[in-house]
């Protein structure tokens, strides 16, 4: 009975979303206050029903109700409770439900946090989100119903894919989806602005915090996914340029461009058309990503079972949503003025270059991802595009971007002068060049690519230091007082930019100095990697809650003293399926030692993989810093104070409108 209630609640949510997507928009166009006032309550009602439906699904998983087909296929009574909960989004149906749930949550947030916005704007924004929600709920109900029953009821479930039975996988999808779906808010604001014809600085100010939140979550989501791949796939890689990774990376690149271009639109009133296009593109790419993952047009480790009906549906949905908004853009955008002028060398032009580079990067990822599809569709053969392509395209695009990252924040709006910038930054450049040359020598061996990567990273750090010094120079008081006097959004930017530097350092050093050995080891055999010596001490059997593991013991010593023992595992899950590798990793600030078990080769010997990954933790720390920078910027005073005084009149206006 309970799953049927969930199903029914979702149907009601569809009806409510349909109302949310039509009446307020019509009301806004025709100036009908009663219809405009519908937007908030209807959006909140939609959230209640979607949350109920989603809660029912989660409840079915937690209580192991195997009469629900989705539970029977993706869970098992032996599964620990948090994985049973995470199994809620472990399937195609479940992850689409999570998408719908996130969209409803974002809609609720907009309806609650928009008191200082004109009601007409809110009506349009929530209306657009309602339409998007309609599309997704209909998709779930029509092609991917998670509440379907099976009869006869199986005694036990088939189990969650062992790859997903991992703490990282409990957190990664919700984070990623929060970010993915969060761009729908920026999208809705952009479409609402196009509908109203009012595309101005106020619009940019409203959509900026929403975009930043979504961007932060997407950043964290991508990082968690990469980290998960690193420690569960057992061969030490952390980014594979897999179509699904690319699908999350493309919105991130465009989202990053959007975060920057919104600044220009808000502060200088320029780039309006461009910003609107970015807002539409960021969410469109989220949708395209969903299509790529769900339709099976590309092979990927993440692909769920495919069904052409689903692909056709999502494609049709893409055509309506993206095609519709781009048409609206083509028709409406010209009405919006070009905005203020700026010189060739100015902060505007540098941010524009930043945008172009990020977009070019996104374009090349899209091209690489879809190239096999293009060739196949034109009958030109089957190929696959791998990391060499992406690596060779990415570095040349990121280099000027990083260079500008150092100059941009120091350049003046409207007009900056090259000699002046040179005078302020020459020491930063000198320091970064020298450091980049010296550090690899200290690290042991000089490699040109390592040196180059470090140059980029130190350039960001050095120019950031110059920036902070200039900002705080004329001030009185101690360091703390000076720091506090700068707005939080400023420190947010600094933190995020330093995050990029930290990320580059991590990637550069791990690419340059990582070592790996794949060896066949008998009990007592040793292998050395760098200054570490690894001894294989044999394998014992260990029983987990729902698996049996062959647990290897590998002791690590340095200079003759044993530092620690690592326990990599090879797990066989009781419910069957592929054996799983669980790498044992000793993580530290200066890098990881990574041991994973390969195959048994008979006679008690195993293939053991041993990796030394210097500074890999920095790659993830960089991403965390970027996200923290974003969150810090959100705590800026203007977002807090702005909400309060403006709230009162807005509420009065809202009440008057409702009458």
């Amino acid at each position, binding site marked *: 009975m309970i799953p049927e209630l969930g199903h029914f609640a979702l149907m009601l949510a569809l009806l409510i979303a349909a109302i949310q997507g039509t009446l307020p928009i019509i009301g806004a166009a025709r100036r009908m206050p009663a219809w405009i006032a519908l937007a908030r309550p209807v959006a909140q009602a939609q959230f209640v029903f979607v949350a109920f439906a989603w809660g029912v699904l989660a409840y079915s998983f937690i209580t192991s109700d195997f009469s629900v087909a989705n539970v029977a296929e993706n869970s098992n009574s032996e599964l620990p409770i948090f994985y049973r909960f995470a199994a809620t989004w472990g399937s195609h149906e479940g992850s689409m439900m999570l998408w719908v749930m996130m969209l409803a949550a974002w809609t609720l947030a907009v309806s609650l946090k928009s008191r200082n916005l004109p009601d007409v704007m809110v009506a349009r924004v929530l209306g657009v989100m309602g339409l998007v929600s309609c599309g997704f709920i209909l998709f779930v109900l029509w092609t991917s119903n998670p509440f379907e029953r099976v009869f006869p009821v199986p005694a036990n479930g088939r189990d969650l894919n062992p790859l997903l039975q991992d703490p990282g996988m409990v957190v990664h999808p919700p984070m990623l989806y929060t970010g993915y779906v969060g761009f729908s808010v920026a999208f809705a604001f952009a479409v609402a602005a196009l509908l109203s014809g009012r595309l101005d600085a106020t619009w940019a100010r409203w959509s900026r915090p929403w975009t930043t939140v979504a961007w932060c979550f997407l950043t964290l989501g991508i990082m968690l996914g990469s980290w998960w791949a690193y420690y569960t796939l057992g061969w030490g890689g952390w980014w594979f340029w897999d179509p699904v990774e690319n699908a999350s990376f493309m919105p991130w690149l465009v989202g990053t461009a959007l975060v920057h271009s919104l600044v220009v639109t808000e502060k200088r009133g320029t780039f309006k*058309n461009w910003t609107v*296009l970015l807002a*539409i*593109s960021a969410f*469109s790419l989220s949708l*395209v990503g969903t*299509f790529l993952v769900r*339709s*099976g*047009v*590309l*092979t990927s480790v993440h692909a769920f079972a495919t069904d*052409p009906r689903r*692909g*056709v549906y999502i*494609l049709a949905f*893409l*055509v309506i949503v*993206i*095609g519709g908004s*781009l*048409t609206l*853009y*083509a*028709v409406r*955008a*010209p009405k919006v003025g070009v905005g203020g002028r700026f010189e060739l060398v100015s902060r505007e032009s540098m941010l524009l270059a930043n945008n172009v580079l990020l977009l070019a990067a996104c374009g090349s990822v899209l091209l690489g991802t*879809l190239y*096999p*599809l*293009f060739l*196949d*569709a034109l009958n030109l053969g*089957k190929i696959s595009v791998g990391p060499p392509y992406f690596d060779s395209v990415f570095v040349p695009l990121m280099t000027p971007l990083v260079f500008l990252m150092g100059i941009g924040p120091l350049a003046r709006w409207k007009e900056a002068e090259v000699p002046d910038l040179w005078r302020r930054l020459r020491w930063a450049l000198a320091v970064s060049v020298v450091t980049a040359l010296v550090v690899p020598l200290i690290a042991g061996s000089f490699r040109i690519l390592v040196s180059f990567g470090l140059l980029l990273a130190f350039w960001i750090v050095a120019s950031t230091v110059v920036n902070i010094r200039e900002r705080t120079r004329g001030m009185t008081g101690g360091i703390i007082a000076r720091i506090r006097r700068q707005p939080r959004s400023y420190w947010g930017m600094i933190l995020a930019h330093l995050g990029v530097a930290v990320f580059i350092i991590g990637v550069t050093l791990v690419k340059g100095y990582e070592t790996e050995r794949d060896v066949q080891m008998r009990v007592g055999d040793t292998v050395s990697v760098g200054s570490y010596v690894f001894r294989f001490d044999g394998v014992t059997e260990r029983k987990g809650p729902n698996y049996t593991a062959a647990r290897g013991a590998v002791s690590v010593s340095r200079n003759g003293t044993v530092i620690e023992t690592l326990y990599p595992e090879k797990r066989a899950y009781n419910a069957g399926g*592929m*054996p799983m590798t669980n790498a044992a990793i000793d993580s530290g600030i200066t890098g990881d030692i990574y041991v994973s078990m390969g*195959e048994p080769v*008979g006679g008690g010997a195993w293939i053991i993989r041993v990796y030394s990954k210097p500074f890999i933790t920095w790659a993830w720390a960089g991403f965390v810093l970027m996200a923290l920078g974003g969150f810090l910027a959100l705590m800026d005073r203007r977002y807090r104070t702005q909400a309060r005084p403006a709230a009162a009149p807005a509420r009065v206006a809202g009440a008057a409108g409702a009458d």
Partner: protein
Amino acid sequence: MNRKLLIPLVVFVVLCGFLFAGLWRDPREVPSPLVGKPAPAFNLAQLDAPDKPFGTADMKGQVWLLNVWASWCVSCREEHPLLVEFAKAKIAPVIGLNYKDQPAPGRQWLAQNGDPYTTSVQDRDGRVGIDYGVYGVPETFVIDKAGTIRYKQIGPITPEALEKNILPLVRELQKS
């Protein structure tokens, strides 16, 4: 209206065309460059009779299947019952290529799981596997009377692949 503003829409429409075309194709289907080419010749020791070599020449004039297997291969177990069934029906001879394996575990594996093979030959260092472009075990080739490869199954044989692709092809080749 400014024409430039239509560019994003045009790009998107073209993209959709490709995405739509992509829906009707299977990206996992990788055509083997060997299909239509003569099967690379081999002459290897048999698993049961190491002193008696066996090779492609012995199969001339017959339609046969070459199945690449190994005792260490997990997904071979998946397709094995199908192969046993296929052999029982005596539709066509199946030759096993025991790939990168030791004779003893190989023989033991066949004793445990059933032996569908007319004979299995030992490809201990995987040289013949390279000739055949094997990049994952199991793989299965359908070879016609003239010794030309007509079909390649990558990964385990599924009931679907057997019904739809292999059986009709074998029957057709046997008629000609």
